[in-house]
């Protein structure tokens, strides 16, 4: 068999000459020494992370081991555990307990709300619906955090739309009953812990949905089929296959929801009771009270809690499916 169309032979050297100039020389150099390029690219962010970021965190840690002179209000730059002793006073422990409980509840609620949304997005949403999903999740993040919180204050207020809606549905007794409970209740939702909780969940929910969706996206659909094929009911498939595989995503999301709640000081200030959260304590200690060491010690609390949290999550095998 012979080809009737001949391919024109090009006259070209086997090795092409460089285009000359500095750029060509640099390109060749980087090609021969790829690690050099990597070093050049990583140096600025590593410097930033190492010095500015970790460095200031270290300075903060250092501050917590100083103490304040109660009479002069001056900082005594000698290492002591006195500030940590102050931290363990009942009033401060109360703040820590309240904040951690709130963070845990917000995380739990976010995970429960996020799972079905993320599952739908990962498994069924395609094309336009997927775009709509991302838009729906991200859109609230585009508007100002403060505006959203004040909007919620109006929604949750006694004269707000929620009370109005419940009145129309003749369900006001439900709200009143809830608000008359201790701890979670109050005069209206906007000045109750329940209100704080609702707004926290609203604000941090996207940070839970996105990692869970990413985790579920990576679960091949045929694992669900295989589980069903082997005799597992949909509930068993969820417990034994989907949930364990979504767990790294839930843990990743919970790191956001948990630590953001631990550190936030604006939401509990605008919505909720007058009882303090860690963030507010830090804010008032370093501002009004001028007690930088105690503020620093308060800041160490979320870091330690998150450290234990991640350690526990790792031990539970949350990262095994990564």
């Amino acid at each position, binding site marked *: 068999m012979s080809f009737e169309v001949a391919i024109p032979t090009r006259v070209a050297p086997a090795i092409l000459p460089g285009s000359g100039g500095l750029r060509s020389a640099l390109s060749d150099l980087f090609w021969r020494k790829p690690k050099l390029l990597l070093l050049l690219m990583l140096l600025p962010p590593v410097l930033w992370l190492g010095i500015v970021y970790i460095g200031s965190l270290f300075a903060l840690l250092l501050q917590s081991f100083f103490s304040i002179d109660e009479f002069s209000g001056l900082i005594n730059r000698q290492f002591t555990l006195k500030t940590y002793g102050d931290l363990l006073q009942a009033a401060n422990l109360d703040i820590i307990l309240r904040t951690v409980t709130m963070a845990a509840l917000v995380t739990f609620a976010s995970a429960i709300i996020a799972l079905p949304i993320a599952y739908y997005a990962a498994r069924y949403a395609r094309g336009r619906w997927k775009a709509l999903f991302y838009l729906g999740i991200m859109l609230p993040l585009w508007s100002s955090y403060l505006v959203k919180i004040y909007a919620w204050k109006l929604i949750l207020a006694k004269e707000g739309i929620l009370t109005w809606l419940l009145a129309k549905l003749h369900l006001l007794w439900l709200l009143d009953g809830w608000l008359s409970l201790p701890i979670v209740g109050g005069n209206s939702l906007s000045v109750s812990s329940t209100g704080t909780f609702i707004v926290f969940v609203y604000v941090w929910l996207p940070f839970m949905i996105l990692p869970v969706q990413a985790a579920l996206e990576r679960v091949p659909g*045929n694992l669900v089929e295989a589980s069903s094929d082997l*005799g597992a*009911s949909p509930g068993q498939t969820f417990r034994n296959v989907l949930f364990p595989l979504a767990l790294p995503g839930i843990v990743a999301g919970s790191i956001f929801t948990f630590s953001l709640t631990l550190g936030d000081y604006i939401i509990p200030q605008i919505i909720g009771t007058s009882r303090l959260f860690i963030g507010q304590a830090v804010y008032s200690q370093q501002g009004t009270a001028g007690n930088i060491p105690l503020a620093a010690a308060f800041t160490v609390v979320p870091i330690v809690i998150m450290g234990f949290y991640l350690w526990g999550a790792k031990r539970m095998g949350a990262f095994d499916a990564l």
Partner: protein
Amino acid sequence: MTSAVSFQKVSRHFGNVRAVDMVDLDIVPGEFFAMLGPSGSGKTTCLRLIAGFEQPTSGSISIFGERAEGVPPYRRNVNTVFQDYALFPHLNVLDNVAYGLMVRGVGKPERQKAAEEALSLVRLPGYGARRPSQLSGGQRQRVALARALVNQPKVLLLDEPLGALDLKLRENMQEELKSLQKALGITFVFVTHDQGEALSMADRVAVFNDGKIMQIGTPEDIYQRPKTRFVADFVGSSNVLPPDFVQRYSGQHRWGSLRPESIRIGRSAKGDGVAARLVSTNYLGATTRLALDADGLRLHAIVPAGATLPKEGEAVVLTFNRDHLHLMDEPA
């Protein structure tokens, strides 16, 4: 006797696409049944209909005499070996194999013992503690097989399970699957696009095309006596002969088929040989495959390696035993 699987006028449509179109099928208990066809021919959809992942648009399916429409996969005593194995990445090999027993509430010591036995059956004893990601493709395939077999299914479905393996491993697994099926006596339904695999392993083969079954029969039937041009062409690439050509040798105006190994190559016409030209030769190891041009009709012949062959482009004369010329049912 009740069929292991029975399809009556089963169709499965996806929008306008008739993935499975009025299929009738009866699979005998204990047989090794292969569904053979090109991709998109409906064979995998048929498998998924048996497993319960798809529901028929119309028609009825029964498994061992029991109606299966509307029955979810987890209530069917049928297990599948998936094409890409679908092993659970978060469980070790033993827990993967024991999964079916676990969801059925079998106690831990009992199900682990059964899983160990199943792993021994597929010749992977002692691999229980490993993760699927630590296994080779062939080992994963065996784990998937053990995971299905440990449930003692009434029917085992295999969706191109050997497709991802290399040739040597594939040949080994073919023999192993075959002997395993003989030993266990479980009905195997095997989907493949590899005609060699289907012919060598199955007791019976169904050839699929365009959502329909073109022919069901023993491998010999399918290979020696294809009913249609599609089957002749798809299963082992028979020479498909047009009615005019066939009429000259058999007196009947019908489509015919001729196996490539039935053609003999000569240099001079003795009697009524077919004049042709040798177009190209392909060395295949044990045999050599010749492409021939007989006055515009493309033919293939397979001759044993070592035979002295004419050069490419030379004129040759083809002869064949008249008995080997098979007449197909397909109308001219």
